[in-house]
């Protein structure tokens, strides 16, 4: 059956195929045809005939299209012509080429995609760092009061400030809009039968005006009430789950006895993922008089966590600065040891950046390390892009051998050099765009989530960020240009005549290709050495001696001696407990600062105040002199110092040296071997041990028989629960004190191993691409050799020979470079690390050679399998 509509549609299709007409024009002609058919049919002609007649009268479509093109050619500018026909043609050719060489294309695209994925990671990490605490609307008007204090001859900036400062400033300066005092307080929070150790923040009600922490529920003004408490979203969830916490009561306990009931009047919205300043619980600052025993508002010897000021205009601050002198006087009269040299106001906007230089700020101090990690990642991303580009350059040059005729033909029919370069760049951009899409997906959905999960942060970056696109656009353009320019210049430079004559033969002897491959090998080598070193390092540090014996030691933190005594009595009854010790400090958990005076000199030194069993229990070795005597009074004024103390104070014979501490004279009785008080990320500092009165006890440590640690921990927890049901357990195995530190080391190893796998993979891809092209260009040669009786191993040697030299030179050059570079890198990142070793360098060389060997073997299998007849038949 003839269907008119279908017939017309077919005819239109033919019309569209010519692309001469736009939609409006096609519609016009369709209506023409329909009018004509209608007229014919109304004369009594049947549909099919009418259609055929109308079509035939309408005429030949190609002729019309050509005529229309003639019209269009005059219509379009040169630019639009370039884009409509030329670019179209280039894209088409490029796509065809990509599909024709799937292996090379996949290698190119995959390599660049991986590099771009790492770029996305770098961006998201940088975004997280730079956006931190930038969400506060008043960030340019709110300042943290910091003080410069001369300590041991060094100026230090501190974020804490004297207790009365805020109130006085508020009265003295009308320029100050708002003042907020911030003090953190450890509390126990009880809800029904649950108890938790928490940190609450005592603040003036202005806190919620100065910082932008919107409340999800409740009102900020409720903070003016002394028994109100505002929860963070996280805490609301912890205590009340999905229930509405507003109006619920929480019992706060300080120092083990003082209790007060607070009513929940607000819940903050989830903090942005990019924040450094936050809180768990907010209560009015007035509660200080409840939380702190013998609270005296005018006591200049006491400090609070932060005093924040808000001014309308940053210039108003100049007046305030000029008027700070009188506080200095007050402060310095009150505290001889804490002389303020100067006050400085740090803007909230840059507080996070500056806080690495400020002691005890309300912001986090991670900026510097994060920034460093960011730089390392950036370098890594550049390395990866370089590797991918090198792969790309080498493969395009190698493949160009196969397209010499195409190039020659293009040249003969009139393409100039620019056109050839352009064609190549279009191809390149197409590859990069494909890689970009793949790389973005890889970065966003695999790399970034993995990295953030491992590091416990969330950058919250998203694809709608304009800067991300600018950044990726730039990355892409640079990559496309760098990786595309040289090959396109190279390829386009050939003379067509020489190509046709067969004068140009290549694939083998290109110096640049070899240089680049060598460069790539060295880069891969460096990254492999890094990975090996990081892995070695995490093992090394895990096995590194702490300088004492943390194994088999357990500890618990108590509030006072009563608690200590109760717990000790229970613990001692267990047969596997070998030794118990108490003190106000404990290695890895808590230490104090003491000022040691000798004649006119002052030293600020960390101190650990314990009982006489402590050194023996912790396995701290006494190198000279003696340990504390086991009598409660004998060594009341004795101290034991560590080696670093001895060295830094240049005491040749420290025993019997005297120092004044808190107006009493102390004598050094022993020198302890250096031990790590902190994790291995900080250097060992001078430290002293001293004895402490029982009423100052805050900590209990005990040693158990080897192998019974886990069992003892369970016993400890059980005893604790039955003795102090109101107090959450604090303590554990001594070995776990730095658990987080070691897991971060593990993570470093994991990350760099991943990078090394990727690098090796990329190097292998590049080699594979290059060698396979080399092999396929020599099919005839190999076939002839095979026919003449060459063995596969001989052919293998033949291929290897080309690369072996390159490998040898790269390894000889790369070994010292990677050795020193990695050593420098490790010195920057770690305080203590595994010594650089040629073992790792050697291993990376071996890995690279194994990769080469594997690639060649895979290709050889193909050569071996192929029938030489087919190889010779070609062309």
């Amino acid at each position, binding site marked *: 059956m003839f269907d008119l509509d279908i017939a017309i549609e077919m005819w239109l299709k033919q019309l569209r195929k010519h692309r001469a007409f736009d939609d409006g*024009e096609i519609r016009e*002609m369709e209506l023409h045809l329909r*009018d004509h058919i209608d007229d014919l049919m109304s004369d009594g002609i049947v549909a099919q005939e009418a259609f055929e007649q109308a079509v035939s009268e309408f*005429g030949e479509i190609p002729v019309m299209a050509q005529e229309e093109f003639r*019209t269009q050619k005059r219509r379009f500018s040169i630019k639009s012509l370039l884009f409509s026909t030329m670019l179209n043609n280039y894209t088409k050719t490029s796509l065809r080429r990509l599909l024709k060489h799937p292996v090379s294309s996949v290698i190119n695209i995959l390599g660049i995609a991986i590099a771009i994925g790492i770029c996305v990671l770098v961006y998201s990490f940088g975004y997280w760092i730079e956006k931190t605490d930038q969400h506060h609307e008043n960030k340019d008007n709110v300042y943290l009061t910091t003080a410069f204090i001369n300590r041991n001859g060094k100026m230090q900036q501190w974020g804490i400030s004297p207790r009365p400062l805020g109130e006085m400033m508020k009265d003295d300066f009308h320029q100050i809009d708002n003042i907020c005092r911030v003090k953190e307080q450890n509390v126990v929070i009880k809800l029904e039968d649950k108890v938790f150790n928490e940190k609450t923040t005592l603040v003036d009600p202005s806190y919620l005006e100065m910082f932008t922490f919107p409340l999800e529920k409740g009102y900020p003004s409720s903070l003016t009430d002394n028994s109100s408490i505002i929860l963070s979203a996280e805490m609301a969830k912890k205590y009340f789950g999905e229930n509405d916490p507003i109006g619920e009561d929480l019992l706060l306990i300080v120092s083990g006895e003082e209790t007060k009931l607070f009513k929940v009047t607000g819940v903050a919205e989830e903090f942005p993922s990019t924040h450094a300043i936050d809180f768990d619980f907010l209560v009015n600052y007035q509660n200080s008089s409840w939380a702190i025993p013998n609270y005296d508002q005018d006591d200049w010897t006491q400090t609070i966590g932060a005093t924040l000021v808000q001014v309308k205009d940053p210039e108003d601050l100049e007046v305030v600065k000029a008027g700070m002198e009188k506080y200095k006087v007050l402060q310095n009269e009150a505290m001889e040891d804490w002389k303020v040299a100067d006050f400085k106001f740090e803007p909230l906007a840059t507080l996070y950046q500056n806080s690495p230089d400020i002691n005890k700020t309300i912001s986090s101090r991670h900026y510097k390390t994060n920034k460093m990690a960011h730089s390392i990642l950036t370098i890594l991303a550049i390395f990866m892009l370089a590797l991918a580009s090198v792969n790309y350059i080498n493969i395009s040059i190698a493949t160009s051998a196969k397209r010499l005729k195409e190039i020659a033909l293009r040249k003969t029919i009139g393409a100039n050099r620019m056109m050839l370069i352009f064609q190549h760049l279009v191809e390149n951009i197409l590859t990069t765009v494909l890689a970009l899409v793949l790389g973005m997906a890889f970065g966003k959905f695999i790399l970034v989530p993995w990295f953030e999960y491992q590091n416990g942060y969330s950058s919250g970056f998203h694809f709608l960020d304009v800067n991300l696109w600018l950044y990726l656009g730039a990355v892409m353009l640079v990559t496309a240009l760098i990786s595309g320019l040289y090959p396109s210049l190279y390829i386009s430079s050939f003379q067509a005549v020489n190509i046709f004559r067969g004068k140009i033969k290549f694939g083998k002897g290109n110096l640049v290709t070899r240089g680049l491959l060598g460069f790539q090998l060295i880069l891969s080598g460096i990254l492999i050495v890094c990975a090996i070193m990081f892995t070695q390092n995490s093992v090394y540090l895990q096995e590194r001696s702490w300088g004492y014996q943390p194994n088999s030691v357990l500890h618990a933190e108590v509030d006072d001696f009563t608690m200590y005594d109760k717990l000790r009595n229970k613990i001692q009854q267990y047969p596997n407990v070998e030794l118990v010790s108490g003190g106000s400090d404990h290695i890895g958990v808590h230490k104090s600062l003491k000022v040691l005076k000798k004649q006119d000199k002052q030293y600020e030194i960390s101190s650990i105040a314990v009982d006489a069993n402590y050194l023996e229990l912790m396995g701290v070795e006494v190198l000279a002199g003696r340990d504390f005597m086991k009598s409660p009074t004998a060594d009341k004024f004795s101290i034991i110092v560590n080696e670093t103390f001895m060295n830094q104070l240049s005491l040749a014979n420290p025993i019997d040296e005297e120092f004044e501490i808190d107006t009493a004279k102390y004598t050094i009785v022993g020198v302890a071997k250096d031990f790590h008080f902190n994790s291995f990320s900080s250097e060992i500092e001078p430290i002293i041990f001293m004895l402490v009165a029982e009423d100052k006890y805050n900590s209990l440590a005990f040693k158990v028989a080897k192998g019974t640690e886990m069992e003892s921990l369970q016993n400890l927890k059980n005893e604790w629960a039955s003795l102090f049901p109101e107090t959450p357990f604090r303590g554990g195995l001594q070995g776990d004190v730095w658990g987080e530190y070691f897991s971060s080391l593990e993570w470093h190893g994991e990350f760099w191993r991943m990078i090394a796998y990727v690098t090796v993979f990329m190097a292998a891809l590049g080699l594979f691409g290059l060698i396979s092209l080399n092999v396929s260009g020599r099919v005839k040669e190999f076939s002839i050799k095979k026919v003449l009786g060459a063995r596969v191993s001989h052919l293998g040697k033949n291929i290897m020979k080309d690369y072996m030299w390159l490998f040898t030179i790269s390894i000889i050059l790369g070994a010292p470079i990677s050795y020193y570079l990695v050593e420098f890198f490790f010195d920057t990142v770690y305080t203590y690390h595994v010594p650089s070793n040629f073992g790792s360098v050697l291993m990376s060389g071996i890995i690279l050679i194994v990769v080469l060997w594997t690639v060649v073997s895979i290709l050889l299998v193909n050569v071996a399998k192929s029938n030489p007849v087919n190889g010779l038949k070609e062309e």
Partner: protein
Amino acid sequence: MISKNLTAASTKPIILGILKQGNSYGYLIIKKIKELSGGKMKYSDGMLYPVLHRLEKDGLIVSKWVMEDDSVRPRKYYEITEAGKQELAQEQAQWSQVNSVLDAIWNVKPSKN
């Protein structure tokens, strides 16, 4: 039958002439031409459109889509512009000149030899 070349050359003044008499659309224009020439001018209908588009591009005519009340289909109507009218006048003058030249030649009787 009028030759292809002559047909092509005369298309422009014919279309402009038709449009001077009133706005029209493609199918109607071609119908009119066929009518007027009595089928002597052999056109393939489609060739009209590139010409129309070129005339429009040159600013001699303008077009707009119109939905007529009595029709189910919209139509693209062409209207002659002032420039078009001037162009038509020139064409007319040229054709007349050609015509008079031809007339003069053909009306001269061959001399006796």
